[in-house]
């Protein structure tokens, strides 16, 4: 069975600094997606960034980027120029397959990110 592990329950970063959140996963599949979601106190899960396993190039979305190491089954999230609004719980998630047929995401336990002014 696929598993997702986030080994950092809590992280803290100074405003304008850079922080990296770690995630490892286990799967025997070759086609899959990886995601980072942000969940602020409002509770709504917000997609931060996604990575298709077949793409070697690391995904980037503005201040957010990933370091995808497929052989090592590692998927870390780097947040540059951290802002107070980045404070939230961050979840790493895995989804097998391509296309939209399945909505089954497997989530890690989350990393609570605090941003210090």
């Amino acid at each position: 069975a696929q598993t997702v592990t986030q080994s950092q329950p809590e992280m803290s970063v100074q405003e304008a600094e850079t922080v990296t959140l770690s995630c490892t996963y286990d799967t025997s599949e070759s086609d899959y997606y990886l995601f980072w979601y942000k969940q602020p106190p409002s509770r709504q899960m917000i997609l931060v960034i996604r990575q298709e396993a077949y793409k070697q190039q690391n995904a980037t979305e503005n201040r957010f980027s990933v370091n995808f190491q497929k052989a090592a089954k590692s998927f870390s999230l780097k947040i540059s120029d951290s802002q107070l609004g980045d404070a939230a719980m961050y979840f790493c998630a895995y989804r097998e397959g391509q296309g939209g047929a399945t909505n089954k995401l497997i989530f890690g336990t989350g990393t609570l990110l605090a941003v210090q002014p």
Partner: protein
Amino acid sequence: DAGVTQSPTHLIKTRGQQVTLRCSPKSGHDTVSWYQQALGQGPQFIFQYYEEEERQRGNFPDRFSGHQFPNYSSELNVNALLLGDSALYLCASSRVRGPNTGELFFGEGSRLTVL
């Protein structure tokens, strides 16, 4: 463009009771999934509905059931509530075909407390 909407936002039930949670998907989406998020944990997949049928199910007992209506909205029903069913229940929608397939949008959840 309304996103995923869920109701009610909070509710309190007692053990043994039954509860129904509701979800309206984002406009243009045709598949809905439900997740259970216990306090301090990541969400756990309950099931997915598409074309009014349950397509995939996580490791949840039969007390958890659902329905999808022709307008793509969905309900989650939980019977014989246990204390351990206390959680945030998240609904997520996406489209199976077309652009950006599989990109999930989540609602703000329904917080269920079982006493």
